[in-house]
């Protein structure tokens, strides 16, 4: 079933009267349970595509259906709710709040979802367990290593049990070992049914997905399944 369906999607940036094309007439369908890697050189429009798909930015034109709903008519508040309930985000720079504990960071989407204590703590604790950071739950995020930070980010992205997880270069700031752990988590989440959309410019990261979309100059250049998929660990989650 099509979770994401975009038709004729364009995004044009205008700065000081000069137009820059971000996306040009993109058609794309992503089904539930897919693990899609979007790759392309820098400036190709892959990040723009992720932003539009993640409802962080509105397209200039075109149609975007998410989970059977046409998002064009949604106002800012409704889009915020879509991001909150249906999407999870993992960023290259982790984007955790400093001077707040791991648990508090994971609670953020729950707060905006209107979930109250003690349910909030219960869910956050569950997420901490999932990414195996039990012994760091009360640490300030500034005290964590890069890999641990990204695991907190994944836990945060999962807090509201979203259908899709958008990951923007999730391994870009990590050493290869930590990166593998993160990719392992993403594969395990995908195995559990979450749809994953990942932006990367590294082919070994893209090879851990099931499908690769090549973007160039705002267009989909190539859309192909991964033939020899790299499975990081057959075990998935340890628990």
């Amino acid at each position, binding site marked *: 079933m099509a979770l994401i369906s975009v038709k004729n999607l364009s995004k044009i940036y205008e700065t000081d009267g000069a137009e820059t094309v971000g996306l040009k007439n993109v058609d794309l369908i992503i089904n539930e349970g897919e693990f899609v890697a979007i790759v392309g050189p820098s400036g190709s429009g892959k990040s723009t595509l992720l932003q539009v798909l*993640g409802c962080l930015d509105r397209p200039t034109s075109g149609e975007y259906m998410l989970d059977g709903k046409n998002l064009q008519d949604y106002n800012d508040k409704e889009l915020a709710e879509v991001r909150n309930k249906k999407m999870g985000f993992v960023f290259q720079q982790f984007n955790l709040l400093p001077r707040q504990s791991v648990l508090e960071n994971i609670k953020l989407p729950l707060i905006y979802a209107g979930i109250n204590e003690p349910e909030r703590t219960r869910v956050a604790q569950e997420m901490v367990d999932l990414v195996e950071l039990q012994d760091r739950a009360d640490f300030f995020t500034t005290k964590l290593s890069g890999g641990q930070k990204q695991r907190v980010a994944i836990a945060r992205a999962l807090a509201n049990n979203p259908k899709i997880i958008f990951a923007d270069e999730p391994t870009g700031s990590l050493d290869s070992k930590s990166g593998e752990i993160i990719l392992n988590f993403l594969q395990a989440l995908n195995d559990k049914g979450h749809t994953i959309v990942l932006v990367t410019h590294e082919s070994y990261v893209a090879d851990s997905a099931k499908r690769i979309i090549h973007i160039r100059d705002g267009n989909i250049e190539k859309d192909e399944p991964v033939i020899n998929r790299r499975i990081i660990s057959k075990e998935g989650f340890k628990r």
Partner: protein
Amino acid sequence: MQFKDTLKISVKGLSTHRGRSLLTILGIVIGITSITLVNAIGDSAKSMILSEVEGLGSNNVFILPGKQPTGPSDFGGSILNNSLTNRDLESLNKKSNVPDALDVAPIVFGPVVASRESEIYSTMVIGTSPEIFNIYGLGIDQGEMFTADDVTQASDNVVIGKKVADQLFGQSDVIGEKIKFKDNNFRVIGLLQEKGQSPFVNFDEVILAPYTTAQQHVLGFRYIQRIAITATSPEAIDGMIKDIEATLRDNHNITDPKDDDFYVTTMKDLANSVSTVTDILTILLGSVAGISLVVGGVGIMNIMLVSVTERTREIGLRKALGATNGDILKQFLTEAVILTVLGGITGIIFGVGLSYLATVAANRIWGLNFPFTIPISGIILGVTVSTAIGFIFGIYPARQASKRSPMDALRYE
């Protein structure tokens, strides 16, 4: 999203930048401190003056020459007016004219330099009649008061205040001694009991003389500057004023009250005008302090705008995670209001503390009976104003914050 959560997030946001938050509220602290201080001292001054006015007795009325002043510029005129005469005094003293008058005392006054041997003292002579003792509640410490005969004869007998005695005689006995002013010798027949400050006059620092003596030998004029009258009871005051007005109009051949060349003022009038003056002063000084609050508010707006720019990524992230524009607006507005309210509370504490010190200092240095009052109105004003400033100057930065795009979370520094 619940307000409790907004509050928690805002407090977290502020405590992350503790040093900056402290600096930000400094302007508000100073503004609220000065407003509280001005209010507290205004309240204290008012209650001090009012208690003194009331101490004079609510049965007293004063007749002054000239037209009833309607503005500050009229006051000077009334002092120079010479419409009240000794004849008026005689008429008012007649029971048939003003039956409710218990005591009637004329008052003439002027500055003199009194001397005794080599000692000199700049003071004031008050020419009056013995009834002044009842009206002002004065007492004799040594000797005696001059009598009605002294008034009739314009004798050179005077009664002096405690401070005058101290300055001119030191420790030695004063009764029967001579003092000199305006080239005339006067005999001290009495020493007043120490009384401290009364409204508009400190009897410890004056020389009391028969008003006839004062008119003829000291001041050199024949009119009367004030007439003080005590009514038999507070209820009799209104009727007595009518009698006084009728008597004086008759004396002055006035038919239309508009042409009155005198006016009667009661202690209540006096208390009211004192209140008005201190209120005006409080408002005036308070508005000056208010300007510093506006400056403080602009400071908060400035810092909040910087903060919004600096925290672009945080705002973007919160939006990516599902915060609505309203959530972000509330967060930053709450931060601003918390800052100003904290500044307000700190300012109130400083203001009350400083006004306490000020009353202690005033009492120690000038020997005033300056009461310390907790300025309730100042506190309420301070809290209200600081909250309002938080909203007024916080709304713009908060709106700027709420307009940030969630995409900002993805931008790399």
